[in-house]
């Protein structure tokens, strides 16, 4: 069964973990032991049954009713399995949120309809980050409808004001759906709800399915392979790595950058077997007709006549999660750590409005457009063209400081 990764997004306490807990129960995916354990823990804390405890497994998470770190749970619907990626909604845990959401193919955003909650900065920040991570399909679950008597007006109000922001940051209106639910009461998740007669769409799980079953953006078809390194074999050294775009055939002329090697492919091995050609997402071992003394790890293989651009200067959009210390910055790019000799901030972007803003000092949770000068050249491409060669992680020394995409 094909598994689709669904990233849950939203402000803390708007019901992400509760939703996953309820979905696990309603689809029959939760084991008896997990449900019993969640029941016992709810009782121990003197609370009514909390479906989120099926998921939140750290002691601290249950006691403080807050998700600390990302986790996953699987459910199935029709011919697909969904791997639901829970992420923490708390601002300080944005690093863990990004780690989880980076694997998402479809985003499922929760917004509480409760009058004292509604659309928050963190709601929009999560949307902004998910767009940067390349997610282009979005289901917005307007949650806690039970607390507003399943009021259609409140649902429309949230949909109206969030739609503007969603378009502004680049989601296409055709790729966005709004669904009213109550995760805690289990309404309109898997079955239609008698309290939501005014709602004409399908239950949440079907709306997620609609987007999950769609094909993603087609790739450019150009060969790109990330080289992990070289390994010995009986027939000499092999270059190993993963094809991230396009395909590769025996006899093909290739270029390995930045090493600068040009060679022909003599043999291709996939999963231990010799093959004539390999395609995207396959891990290969290549025997080339010549070798290079240069380090292989971190190189990019392309067709000899269609290589990526080699550059030490990248213009990028960065979401900042930590402090920038201009003397200690580096980027992580396809497995290599490369130091930055300079960072020049061109302008700030407010991740909660999508607007340009002036920026004297860059702080955590800001987004910026910046020019980076690197200590060495990398084979880079625009994120839009080949996402694997157009994105990086920013570090300040050992500290994770943000994510960037090349524009």
């Amino acid at each position, binding site marked *: *069964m*094909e*598994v689709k990764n669904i990233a849950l997004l939203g402000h803390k306490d708007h019901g992400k973990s509760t939703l996953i807990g309820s979905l696990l129960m309603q689809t029959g*995916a939760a*084991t*008896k*032991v*997990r449900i019993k*354990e969640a029941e*016992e*823990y709810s009782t121990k804390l003197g609370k009514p049954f909390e479906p989120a405890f099926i*998921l*939140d*497994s*750290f*002691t*601290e998470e249950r006691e403080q009713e807050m998700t*600390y*770190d*990302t*986790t*996953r*749970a*699987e459910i*199935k619907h029709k011919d697909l*399995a969904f791997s639901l990626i829970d992420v923490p909604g708390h601002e300080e845990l944005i*690093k*863990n949120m*990004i*780690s989880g959401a*980076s*694997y998402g193919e479809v985003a499922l955003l929760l917004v509480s309809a409760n009058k004292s909650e509604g659309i928050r900065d963190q709601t929009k920040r999560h949307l902004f980050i998910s767009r940067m991570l390349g997610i282009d399909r979005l289901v917005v679950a307007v949650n806690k409808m039970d607390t507003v008597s399943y009021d259609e007006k409140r649902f429309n109000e949230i949909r109206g004001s969030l739609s503007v922001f969603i378009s502004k940051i680049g989601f296409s209106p055709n790729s966005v759906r709004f669904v009213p639910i109550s995760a805690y009461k289990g309404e309109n998740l898997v079955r239609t709800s008698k309290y939501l007669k005014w709602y004409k769409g399908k239950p949440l799980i079907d709306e997620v399915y609609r987007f999950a079953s769609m094909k993603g953006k087609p790739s450019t078809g150009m060969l790109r392979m*990330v080289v*992990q*390194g070289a*390994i010995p*074999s*009986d027939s000499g050294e*092999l270059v*190993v790595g*993963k094809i991230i775009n396009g395909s590769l055939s025996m006899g093909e002329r290739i270029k390995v950058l930045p090493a600068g090697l040009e060679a022909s492919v003599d043999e291709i*091995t996939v*999963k*231990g077997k010799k093959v004539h050609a390999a395609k995207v*997402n*396959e*891990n290969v*071992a290549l025997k080339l007709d010549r070798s290079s003394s240069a380090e292989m*790890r971190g190189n990019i293989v392309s067709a000899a006549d269609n290589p990526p651009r080699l550059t030490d200067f990248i213009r990028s959009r960065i979401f900042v999660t930590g402090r920038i210390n201009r003397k200690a910055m580096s980027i*992580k790019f*396809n*497995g290599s*750590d490369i130091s930055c000799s300079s960072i020049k901030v061109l302008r700030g972007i407010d991740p909660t409005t999508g607007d340009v803003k002036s920026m004297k000092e860059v702080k955590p949770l800001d987004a910026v457009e910046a020019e980076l000068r690197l200590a060495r050249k990398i084979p880079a491409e625009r994120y839009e063209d080949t996402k*694997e060669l157009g*994105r990086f*992680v920013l*570090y300040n020394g*050992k500290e*994770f400081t943000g*994510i960037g995409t090349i524009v």
Partner: protein
Amino acid sequence: MIKQELPALEEKSIYVIREAKLKFKKIAALWSMGKDSTTMLALTRKAFLGKVPFPVIHIDNSIDFPETYQFRQDLAKKWNLDLIIAKSEIKPDMVGSACCGKNKPEALKKVMAEYGFDALIVSIRRDEHGVRAKERYMSPRDKNWKWDYKNQVAELWDDYTSKLDSKGHVRVHPLLDWNEIDVWRYVKQEKIPVNPLYFSRNGYRYRSLGCTHCTVPLKSNAKGVDDIIKELEVTKDEERSGRSMDKEREYAMLRLRSLGYM
């Protein structure tokens, strides 16, 4: 239990295993002779053209089942494994987490220091336990072997941690995405040898294998791999329900893992 696509799982694991071998200076893998770590070795052989290019460590407390020792001997020979046996001492009256949480990590610590390993492949899966579901594919442990679960490293896309604490090591989890049923389907597809204790004898079989002190067989008539797959398709019981230490306290696993348990 959800059956995932085996080719996709296989590719991901091969990527992670190669990445670990090529990223770290000196790596080893834990091998308990159970189905998961044996599957990991089969995947390693696919990644490295039929070889397992790193040592495999068995933490041996001398009270594993006789079948397990026989299996170790046979497969180590067949797959030409560079086997390190780390002897763990069993103290009288120590059972459950007192044993698994202390004796085994101590034996492992000793062998890791002796050989200077900076990374260790461990074949845990997310679906085994809520706490294991929180793990990263590559997760650093500090010099005291603590898992800083409240401040885990960021892990995006295919980029795994490289910012190491100098005296610590990195735990590598290539099987994180697999479900129990996927492992058995893969065992079937690849004809991977498995410990005979997994199969039913006199109406009982072991679903999860630990040592003789703490593992209890479950009622089952599954006599072969196909029967096990059928059994898992419908079960609502947890895989580790035959492990005493998991049941001692609901958070035993969290405490154990944060202290270095595998």
